[in-house]
C-alpha cells in the first residue's frame, strides 16, 4: 500500500466506524422505542448508518488489498483499532439523550458529507453524496425532537438539557484533524474538520434557541483522541456484544 492509500484506509475506517457504532447503538432501541413510530424511525436510521458503513468498509478493504471484507473490518478489530468519535459510543440513556447524541452528530455529518462529495477520490465522493441524502432526513428528525423535548414539559426540558451538558465534552474532537487527515486534506481527499465548525455552531445555536435550551460553555474540557484508538469504556462493551457471534462461530451464515 502506498502512503496515500494507507492514509485513505485509515480515514475510511474513521467514517465507517462512526456509522457502524452509532448504527449499532440505535439498533439497541429496536423493540424498545417509546412509541411505535419512533421505534421504526430509529431502526430506519440504524439501517441507513450500517448501510453507509458497509460502503466505507468495503472500499477500505479494496484499498488495503489484503482480502479483508466489510465483515473482517467490523468484527475482527479490537477497541483500540476503532476510530469512531467517542460521542457515538456513549450509551443511549433515555430517548432524549439518544436524540441529543444524534443531533450533535448529524449537525456535523451533514456539512461533512456535503463537502466530501467533492473529494478528489471518486468513490469517497460517491459514498458521501449518497449518505448526505440520508443524513439530511436524520438531522431533521433529531432537530424536531430537540425542539419538542426542549420546549416540552419541565421534565423533558431538564433531561435534555442535562444530556446536552453530559455529551458536550465529546463534541470538541469532531473538529480536530489527525495527521492522517492533514495529509489527505493536502491531497483534496479529506475535509478540514475545523472548517465545519462554524456551520455546526450555527445549526446548534438555531435549534437550541427554538427549543429553549442553553448551549453548554464551549470553553470547557474536551475529550479527544478517538482517531488513534482512545475511547471511553463503553466501546469495549459494544464490541463484546456486536462481535461475539462471528468470533464464536467464524464464517457463520444464516
Amino acid at each position, binding site marked *: 500500500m502506498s502512503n496515500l492509500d494507507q492514509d485513505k484506509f485509515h480515514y475510511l475506517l474513521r467514517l465507517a466506524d462512526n456509522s457502524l457504532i452509532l*448504527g449499532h447503538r440505535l439498533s439497541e432501541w429496536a423493540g424498545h422505542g417509546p412509541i411505535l*413510530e*419512533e421505534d*421504526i*424511525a430509529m431502526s*430506519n*436510521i*440504524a*439501517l*441507513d*448508518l*450500517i*448501510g*453507509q458503513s*458497509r*460502503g466505507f468498509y468495503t472500499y477500505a478493504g479494496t484499498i488495503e488489498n489484503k482480502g479483508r471484507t466489510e465483515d473482517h473490518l467490523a468484527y475482527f478489530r479490537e477497541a483500540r483499532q476503532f476510530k469512531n468519535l467517542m460521542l457515538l459510543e456513549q450509551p443511549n440513556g433515555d430517548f432524549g439523550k439518544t436524540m441529543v447524541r444524534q443531533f450533535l452528530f448529524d449537525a456535523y455529518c451533514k456539512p461533512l458529507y456535503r463537502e466530501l462529495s467533492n473529494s478528489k477520490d*471518486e*468513490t469517497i*465522493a*460517491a*459514498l458521501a*453524496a*449518497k*449518505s448526505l*441524502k*440520508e443524513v*439530511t*432526513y436524520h*438531522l*431533521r*428528525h433529531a*432537530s424536531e425532537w430537540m425542539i419538542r423535548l426542549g420546549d416540552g414539559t419541565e421534565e423533558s426540558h431538564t433531561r435534555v438539557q442535562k444530556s446536552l451538558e453530559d455529551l458536550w465534552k465529546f463534541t470538541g474532537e469532531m473538529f480536530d484533524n489527525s495527521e492522517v487527515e492533514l495529509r489527505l486534506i493536502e491531497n483534496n481527499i479529506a475535509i478540514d474538520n475545523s472548517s465545519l465548525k462554524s456551520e455546526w455552531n450555527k445549526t446548534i445555536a438555531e435549534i437550541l434557541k427554538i427549543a429553549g435550551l442553553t448551549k453548554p460553555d464551549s470553553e470547557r474540557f474536551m475529550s479527544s483522541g478517538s482517531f488513534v484508538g482512545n475511547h471511553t469504556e463503553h466501546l469495549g462493551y459494544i464490541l463484546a456484544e456486536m462481535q461475539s457471534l462471528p468470533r464464536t462461530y467464524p464464517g457463520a451464515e444464516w
Partner: protein
Amino acid sequence: MYSTEKIVEFLNEIPDPEVPAISIVELGVVREVNLIDDGVQIKMTPTYSGCPALKVMEDDIRDKLSSKGITNIEIEMVYSPAWTTDWMSETTREKLRVYGIAPPEKGVSDKSILFSEGKKIMQCPFCGSTETTLTSSFGSTACKSLYFCENCIQPFEHFKCI
C-alpha cells in the same frame, strides 16, 4: 444470446420486493446492462445505503436470468450518481398512487426536505384529499414516510423524495 433490450425486458418483470406494484427497473436501481463473455453484467445502485431489499433484488435478478439460460451473471454495485426518486417516470408514479402509496414529487431541493416536510401538501392516494398530516418521516421501509388522511380517516404511505 439475448440483446441488452431483451435483458432489460426480463428485469422489468421482477417486482420490487417491498413495493411489488413497480418493477426494479421502474424503481431505477438497475443502472446499466452490459453483455459480457457468455453472460451479462448488471450495475445496480441502492435506493438507501442500508436497504434490506437489495440482497433480495440481487437474488431475484440471478434467478430470473438463470431461468432464461444465462449462466454468467455479474452484479456490480455503483454509488454514483446517487439514486433519486426523480428517475421515476410519470407512469411509475401513477402505478404507486393506484397501489395506495403517494408518489414522490419531482425535483425537491435539499432545503425543503429539511424542516418543511410536515407542511408539505400531500394528496391522499385513496380519496385525493389534501387534508393530510405527516405522522412520521420514517415508515415501514427505508423509502417511505407515514401520513394520515383526515378526510377518509386512514393512514397512507408516501414514497419519500431523495
